[in-house]
């Protein structure tokens, strides 16, 4: 398909209570956005296991979008904050693996923000289209690594090794 | 010594020379250094935008680009004319708002070897700089000849508070900053509902009947509310109210005599400067009698037909019922105090 322009494939992780419903709302309101994104529903952005993201990259995603409730509006009170901490860490890991930062993005969206989510998705798709296909040396290594080790052990470097660490203090 | 980039605007060395000299005098007193932008060009007033948007933006863009090039220390570009201020601020805003436009304008600027990064300079009006950066306390400290007894209608004009891109004013409609400044000079601020009404801009040129009507509204409101004179922040407003007041009177068969001075002239007087160094006397509607009320003598000039100040009492403010007092009156809603947010 070299003759056709590059169309990125993006995996989006959504929260059952806000961003997934926002996506539903976008649908109900017939708001349009590019078909390059494929959504996965989690109960909460807090459920996002770093290995999910690595897995997505390993299996050929050109980018990953993580979305959850606005800080302070989490259905589970404050789990999205914990997700945020973890995300900060994840960004470093991903960068360390030689993936452009633009390929891992975080978007807050309340259940009422279908329009906004659609806008954000469109933006991300355009940015990633500009970045081009993810040409990642580590992809194969990661695939095999993920295949070998049980997924959870790859999750070991976790943001919450201390009870209530500030994002800044978090280091792998 | 606080230093700012300064865009004077065309009228400063002709019709608004009084503004120019009084600004110099006041800024010297306040220790404000205005660094005039090199080889600036006209802002296009309200005319160029009605000929060609892109060229108008490029015209203003040139000034912004030069300012950006010259900025060191302060990135604030001060304009004293409301029209210039708005054109500079608005263009900067439009370029920032639309990258496409910014690209187009920069392509044009390139033809003159210039470029501008939207937001590189912060365009502000002299009044705001004095009220915010210098501060009213600093102003009060320098007052040696309080304008006590002078009743001033604070005329801010329309373009200064609107569209109000960075929400720097307390209100689009009834801002209080200008009143506070004038009060700080010791003068009495009369209730002036036309505070942010329009002077008509170029209407005196392209459609006099409209222009005169707008001037009449301003002058009559100031007069009805017992002002000795109006204070302005804009050469265009001053020109319309001052230079065309005579023609306006003739066309309406009225005999208003409402002098209008630049706020910097009033500040200069309060700071004890010699009226002549402030360009006082160069107004067509003679302000000397008005100033005479507070014992400020401005030597020679034509006699004035100033009517007695107490010809009309200032309009009564709405009745306010003190809390807790009983009586037939119903209490007024409480208004927020300074800085108090209304939800």
């Amino acid at each position, binding site marked *: 398909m070299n003759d056709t322009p590059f169309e990125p494939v993006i995996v989006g992780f959504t929260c059952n209570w806000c961003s997934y419903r926002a996506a539903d709302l976008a649908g109900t309101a017939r708001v349009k956005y590019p078909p390059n994104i494929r959504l996965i529903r989690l109960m909460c952005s807090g459920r996002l296991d770093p290995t999910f993201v690595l897995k997505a990259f390993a299996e050929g995603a050109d980018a990953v979008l993580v979305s959850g409730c606005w800080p302070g509006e989490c259905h589970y009170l404050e789990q999205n904050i914990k997700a945020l901490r973890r995300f900060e860490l994840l960004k470093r890991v991903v960068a360390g693996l030689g993936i452009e930062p633009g390929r891992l993005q975080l978007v807050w969206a309340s259940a009422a923000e279908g329009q906004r989510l659609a806008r954000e998705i469109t933006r991300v798709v355009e940015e990633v289209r500009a970045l081009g296909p993810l040409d990642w040396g580590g992809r194969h290594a990661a695939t095999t690594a993920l295949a070998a080790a049980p997924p959870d052990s790859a999750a070991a470097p976790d943001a919450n090794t201390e009870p209530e660490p500030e994002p800044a203090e978090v280091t792998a | 010594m606080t230093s700012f980039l300064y865009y004077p605007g065309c009228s400063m060395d002709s019709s608004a020379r009084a503004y120019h000299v009084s600004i110099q005098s006041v800024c010297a007193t306040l220790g404000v250094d205005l660094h005039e932008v090199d080889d600036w060009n006209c802002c296009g007033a309200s005319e160029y935008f009605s000929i060609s948007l892109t060229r108008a933006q490029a015209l203003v863009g040139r000034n912004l680009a030069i300012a950006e090039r010259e900025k060191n220390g302060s990135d604030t570009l001060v304009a004293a004319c409301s029209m210039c201020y708005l054109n500079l601020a608005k263009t900067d805003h439009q370029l920032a708002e*639309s990258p496409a436009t910014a690209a187009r304008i920069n392509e*044009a600027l390139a033809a003159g070897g210039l470029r501008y990064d939207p937001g590189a300079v912060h365009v502000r009006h002299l009044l705001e700089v004095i009220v915010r950066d210098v501060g009213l306390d600093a102003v009060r400290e320098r007052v040696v000849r309080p304008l006590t007894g002078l009743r001033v209608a604070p005329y801010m004009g329309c373009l200064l508070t609107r569209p109000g891109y960075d929400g720097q004013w307390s209100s689009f409609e009834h801002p209080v900053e200008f009143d506070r400044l004038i009060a700080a000079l010791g003068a009495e601020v009369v209730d002036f509902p036309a505070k942010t009404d329009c002077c008509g801009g170029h209407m005196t040129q392209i*459609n006099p009947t409209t222009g005169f009507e707008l001037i009449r509204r301003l002058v009559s409101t100031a007069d009805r509310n017992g002002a000795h004179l109006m204070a302005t922040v804009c050469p265009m407003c001053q020109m319309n109210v001052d230079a065309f007041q*005579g023609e306006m009177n003739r066309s309406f068969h009225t005999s208003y005599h409402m002098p209008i001075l630049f706020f910097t002239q009033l500040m200069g007087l309060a700071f004890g400067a010699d009226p002549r160094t402030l360009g006082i006397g160069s107004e067509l509607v003679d302000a000397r009698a008005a100033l005479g009320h507070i014992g400020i003598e401005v030597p020679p000039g034509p006699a004035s037909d100033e009517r007695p100040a107490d010809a009309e009492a200032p309009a009564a403010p709405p009745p306010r019922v003190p809390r807790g007092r009983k009586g037939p009156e119903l209490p007024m809603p409480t208004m927020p105090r300074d800085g108090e947010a209304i939800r």
Partner: protein
Amino acid sequence: MALAASPVPVTGVGRSFLDEVRTAAGQTSRLEMCIQCGTCGGSCPSAADMDHTPRMLFAMIRAGMREAVLRSNTPWMCVSCYFCAVRCPQDVHIPDVMYALKAMATRAGRYPDSTAPDFSKTFVDNIHAFGRSFEVGLIARHYLRHYMTRLPGVAPMGIGMLSKGRLGFRPKHIRDLDGLRAILDRAGELEESAS
């Protein structure tokens, strides 16, 4: 008017007049959002002298009444005081629309009264000539062309202004006139190619 000759053309064919105006106003005008509430017409200090209120003009733009809109004096009566802009519940950038309409009318040579367009033109010519505005030149030329009758009336004013040293007879030049002209010409080309 004859029923057959409806002033409202059939729209929906090709690029609408509304789109044209929106483009001319720089795409950010939000003109399409107007709900016809009349806040603009109510706020306008010169509405009384307009042959259509701004709101009505916007309705006419939607109706595709190009001719009537470009001939309307409404944009020329706009004093750009921005009362309408800050009060508009739909945040329509009305003065920008008015500027755009003036430019369109001038280009199309539609607006019957030449006073305002001439004034703008003279003003702009001065800028091209000197880089600064030139009040005396402007006023003189303008009055001679349009207000011979007003001259006696304004004479005292003119004399006053002169005697008070408030009118400069020699226009001020900027140094880099060529640079300025190059910029404006390039901008002109870009605008042409855009529209």
